[in-house]
């Protein structure tokens, strides 16, 4: 049975009781990601679904406040009506997870999601201005506010973003939104291998043309994007957004430089929208399987080296969301967690998160990158300060977290 | 910022002036970033803001100077980069002048330090003595490595290092008298011969005389003129400095009265900064205040003066000139564009080295008294200059020329030497040697 409080006060009450009795709670929103993180024994589910609705939306100030359980769809609709958007492009991961719940805005921030605009527009954490949450002692805490610039005290907002329901139960979030770009265009360079693509993307991103998305789609996945409409060969794709006139000029410039790398073609508005949504949602791996799926975050320039190294030892398929700072990797059979994490370390560091795998695999594979001892100890102390009784899904992230 | 002075203390005009300066400082710290010693040593005590605070504390408490304060004030180059940077208009120059006088009056330096300073003050300002010293220096050169090993003697080693290897040929550029122009007369100026420059590099004023003559300017080398006083002024020796100033004021006022002067031309920006400050230095001397102000108003760097003469534009030459702006030029006198524009008009390609605001470490006698910091700054300066791949380096101050020349093989000239050459003078020797 899932606990669904309908007021913040109720939530605080439930949590206070749980803390007193040592009952573990597994916090969720729409539960669209059932099966993520390390399995937690004997936890009772508690959802924010009952705390729903947009509280305040000032399009002129580009700020929205919503209760944590508000469906993402509702928020996106309200924003779209004002031609605004969440700049960090929250992904719909129901495809890859094979789940069907209704994603909530609280879940988006609790998972600190981000998309292909990550490098330029930040992740969910960067848009989150203020929160209300209930800590592990059942106290309602407010952090941050509703203005863009705010350095008043410790930034608990960042801490709670990406804490995956292990530090507190979000009840309300206030976040920044941006205007939807007037126009989108994509430059496609065809036929580059992974290494050449890395060079091409690095060069594109150092030009003054404001590339807002860069991805490399190798032959194995390319055909699954935009209904197979991408040209012959591997596709290295670069997104430009903004005022129509400006996008046109920048596209010319970018295309001119990219010609040196390979044949260049372009995708217009509609196909571009589809393409980048599919990249965001990891469309090729929304394949209805349980094949282990990794979300790997490393310095962009080592991405292809990592994949090349792994290929020698394991069955791996991958594509690169460069501006998202990510490699999405699907393993053929074994998740190869140790191998993967060893190579990441050897190549300069980063982290790998297991997004999907069968029950058996998840039971034995740490979903989050294990942290060095000192950082793990520090994180455990932080958790202890927010959730002294250890009731919020202990162990879900790693060790005590 | 807040200050704490008693009315009694404020009765002293020096203190009163310093108090005014201190009040303007808002402790924003901007000046630290462009201070060569802070950038080199990374200690706020060796930054303008730190020094201002040390001086404030010393003056407020009416304390004699002590070793700590002296150490950090001595390390100041008086480059005045901080004055250029300061948004609040803090007159650090006159504050540190006052502090140096206070130090000189209230602090007894260790013996060796006193001797070296005494030696510098007794020799450098006097061309004849300096010439003799250079001959001596040649004899002393073999001892440099030994001297450098004894901390108290390091300055001596530095001194010998800097002395020119050969003595300049005698020149009549400094001989008193009036030079009638070759072209139709357009103006009349006096030129400062100064003290060290005629010994180290008489070619600079020779070039100036030739160029001005061709441009129709009558030039006077007045009888009785001498060191501008900067050398001793920066050591905090107030009275000798004022004496030098008074003597020069007398000489120039005499010239102004007999025949008039359009300008007093200075070819060493270090001296220029001081002469332009005579009006302030002598403000408390009723007999001289007015005359000194008049002299300061007429003082012009040679490039400043040439800029208003509208020199004709010449064909581009294939010569890259790295322009090094002396601190006394850019920070002391705020002359930044004139020299570069003149060079460009004369057809040279001008390059701006990075970190142009940083001192080369010469700073009067600084390279002798603080050889280590000076050496680091020199290396940094040379690195930045060489990065622009110049054929020649131009600058407007003899101190910088001597300093930078010991760090690079690229020839370094005074701006006016290049201009003289471009406008019909002989090719400078340093260039023909290549």
């Amino acid at each position, binding site marked *: 049975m899932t606990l669904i409080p309908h007021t913040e006060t109720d939530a605080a009450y439930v949590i206070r009781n749980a803390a007193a009795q040592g009952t573990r709670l597994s916090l969720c929103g729409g539960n669209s990601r059932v099966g993520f993180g390390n399995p937690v024994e004997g936890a009772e589910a508690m959802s924010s679904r009952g705390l729903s609705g947009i509280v305040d939306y000032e399009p002129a100030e580009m700020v929205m406040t919503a209760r944590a359980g508000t469906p993402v769809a509702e928020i996106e609709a309200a924003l779209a009506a004002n031609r605004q958007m969440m700049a960090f492009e929250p992904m719909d991961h129901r495809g890859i997870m094979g789940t069907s719940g209704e994603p909530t805005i609280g879940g988006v921030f609790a998972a600190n999601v981000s998309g292909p605009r990550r490098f330029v527009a930040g992740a969910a954490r960067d848009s989150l201005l203020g929160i209300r949450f209930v800590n592990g002692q059942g106290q309602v805490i407010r952090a941050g506010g509703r203005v863009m610039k705010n350095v008043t005290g410790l*930034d608990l907002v960042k801490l709670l973003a990406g804490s995956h329901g292990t530090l507190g139960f979000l009840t309300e979030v206030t976040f920044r939104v941006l205007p939807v770009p007037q126009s989108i265009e994509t430059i496609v360079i065809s036929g580059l291998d992974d290494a050449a693509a890395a060079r091409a993307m690095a060069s594109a991103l150092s030009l003054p043309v404001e590339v807002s998305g860069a991805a490399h789609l190798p032959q194995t996945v390319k055909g699954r994007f935009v209904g197979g409409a991408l040209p012959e060969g591997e596709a290295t794709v670069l997104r430009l957004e903004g005022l129509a006139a400006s996008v046109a000029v920048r596209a010319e410039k970018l295309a001119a430089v990219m010609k040196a790398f390979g044949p260049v073609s372009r995708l217009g508005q509609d196909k571009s929208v589809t393409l980048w949504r599919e990249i965001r949602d990891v469309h090729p791996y929304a394949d209805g399987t349980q094949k282990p799926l990794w979300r790997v975050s490393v310095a962009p320039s080592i991405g292809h080296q990592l994949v090349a190294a792994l290929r020698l030892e394991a069955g791996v398929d991958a594509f690169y969301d460069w501006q998202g700072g990510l490699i999405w990797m699907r393993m053929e059979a074994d998740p190869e967690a140790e191998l993967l994490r060893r190579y990441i370390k050897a190549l300069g560091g980063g982290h790998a998160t297991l997004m999907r795998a069968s029950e058996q695999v998840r039971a034995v594979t740490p979903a989050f990158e294990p942290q060095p001892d000192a950082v793990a100890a520090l994180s455990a102390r932080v958790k202890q300060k927010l959730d002294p009784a250890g009731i919020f899904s202990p162990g879900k992230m790693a060790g005590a977290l | 910022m807040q200050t704490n002075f008693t009315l009694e203390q404020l009765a002293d005009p020096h203190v009163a002036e310093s108090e005014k300066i201190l009040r303007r400082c808002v402790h924003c710290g901007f000046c630290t970033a462009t201070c060569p010693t802070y950038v080199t040593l990374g200690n706020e005590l060796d930054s303008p803001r730190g020094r201002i605070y040390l001086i404030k504390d010393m003056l407020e408490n009416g304390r004699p100077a002590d070793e700590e304060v002296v150490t950090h004030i001595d390390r100041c180059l008086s480059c005045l980069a901080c004055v250029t940077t300061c948004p609040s208009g803090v007159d650090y120059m006159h504050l540190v002048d006052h502090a140096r006088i206070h130090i000189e009056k209230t602090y007894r330096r260790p013996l060796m330090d006193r001797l070296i300073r005494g030696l510098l003050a007794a020799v450098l300002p006097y061309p004849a003595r300096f010439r003799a010293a250079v001959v001596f220096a040649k004899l002393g050169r073999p001892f440099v490595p030994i001297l450098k090993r004894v901390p108290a003697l390091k300055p001596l080693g530095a001194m010998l290092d800097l002395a020119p290897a050969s003595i300049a040929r005698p020149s009549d550029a400094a001989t008193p008298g009036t030079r009638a122009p070759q072209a139709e007369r357009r103006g009349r100026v006096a030129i400062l011969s100064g003290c060290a420059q005629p010994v180290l590099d008489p070619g600079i004023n020779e070039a100036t005389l030739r160029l001005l003559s061709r441009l129709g300017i009558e030039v006077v080398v007045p009888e009785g003129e001498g060191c501008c006083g900067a050398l001793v002024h920066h050591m905090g020796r107030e009275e000798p400095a004022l004496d030098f100033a008074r003597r020069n004021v007398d000489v120039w006022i005499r010239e102004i009265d007999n025949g008039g002067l359009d300008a007093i031309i200075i070819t060493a920006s270090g001296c220029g900064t001081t002469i332009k400050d005579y009006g302030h230095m002598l403000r408390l001397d009723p007999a001289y205040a007015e005359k000194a102000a008049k002299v300061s108003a007429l003082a012009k760097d040679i490039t400043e003066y040439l800029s208003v003469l509208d020199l004709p534009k010449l064909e581009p030459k294939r010569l890259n000139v790295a322009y090094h702006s002396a601190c006394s030029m850019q920070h002391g006198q705020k002359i930044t564009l004139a020299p570069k524009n003149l060079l460009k008009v004369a057809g040279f390609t001008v390059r701006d080295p990075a970190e142009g605001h940083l001192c080369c470490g010469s700073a009067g006698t600084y390279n002798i008294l603080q050889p280590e910091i000076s050496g680091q700054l020199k290396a940094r300066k040379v690195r930045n200059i060489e990065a622009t791949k110049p054929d020649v380096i131009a600058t407007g101050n003899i101190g910088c020329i001597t300093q930078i020349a010991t760090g690079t093989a690229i020839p370094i000239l005074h701006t006016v030497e290049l201009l003289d050459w471009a406008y019909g003078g002989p090719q400078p020797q340093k260039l023909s040697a290549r």
Partner: protein
Amino acid sequence: MSEAIEFLPPRPAVLSRRTAIIADLTDLLPAECVIHEARELVPFETDAFISYRRLPLAVVLPKTTAQVAAVMKYCHRYGVPVVPRGAGTSLSGGAIPQEDAIVLGLSKMSRILEVDYANRTATVQAGVTNLNISEAVGVDGFFYAPDPSSQLACTIGGNIGMNSGGAHCLKYGVTTNNLLGVKMVLVDGTVVDLGGKHLDSAGYDLLGLVCGSEGQLGIVTEATVRLIAKPEGARPVLFGFETSEEAGACVTDIIGSGVIPVAIEFMDKPAIEICEAFAHAGYPLDVGALLIVEVEGSEAEMEATLASVVEIARRHGVKTVRESQSAAEAALIWKGRKSAFGATGRIADYICMDGTVPLGKLSYVLKKTSEITDSFGLRVANVFHAGDGNMHPLILFNANDPEDAAKAEAAGNEILKLCVDAGGCLTGEHGVGIEKRDLMRHQYSDADLAQQMAVRSAFDEGWILNPSKVFPLDGRPAA
């Protein structure tokens, strides 16, 4: 000197061991890295919030992370408070020491360690100045985006301490949005790496927590920051208005229209006069308020953005519109703006407020602010980052007149409360320091503060890192 804000009483156990502590520090570090002579400590007694001053016990200026670690290990063991210091440009007293504290200055750690264009990152030591980073990568067409007006002098370590912002943060975000990783020495001397060249954290976002923690969670010794390709062009445009209210309303409308310039800076008449006197940037002197709006991108883009902005400004009765004609002129316009605080020193002492308000409240808060300063008989100059509602009223006073100084402080407190009451916050970018510490309860409940303090304790159980700052002295967790 003002006395309204208290510091923690010095720990007697530390003061009584002063000689031993200095001797021990001298063993740990090279001689030129330890400062302890009374006279030499004086210049470290304050930062850019000069109304308050405290002499430290000693100052250390380590040159390596290992030396920082050795100092921290020692101070942790003996319970000696440590106040980290970058360039000491804090406007909230963040770097002001206390009698029983060691100042740990990062000024000798000022090397740029690595520039990695392929990944668009730079890794630098904490004492590198903000501007140094942009200068180092400028020739290759990159820059580091957050640009506090103090960028010439302030260090990246201090920027992280205060999560500093600047004019161009409207588009590019503040420090926390541009910081990828740090090397940090924990209170007990352990060295940890948080983040790196990759994005986001594998576990909790400790990096996000450290950014803006005012030196209370550890000593940052290295930072990895994001570099951004310079736009093709950038152009500041001056918009002069009759009144501050008109200018304020115009800002709200520009943002509301969805056109987001890179920067919108505001100056009122007193500020215009002050800045023009220093920079000679050609600011119009016949207007009551000025907006500097910067647009960037290709020529086409700048034209288009500018056209929409001009259109909006016209609706608000703009008097003069002046585009900068050259790079040199643009540089002067920014130089004037960035020198504003310092240049104010030409006419008076000042304290600088830093509250942020929702954009819709800008005009209202501006009006109220002058009412408040008027009621105290004080003058005020306003120059601030308007695009994100981050106000900087400069309250002018005479520091040699204690009564005036007290009035300025009181007026400042009222203005900050006004910002909070208008739905904003106490500080947008300068940090809480000591200045706003005792106002924290106006913005947060006891539980909110207790939670923050508990998290702080997770890093520093004994509260030895910069202990007098940020959190009100009463109601702290027992050590």
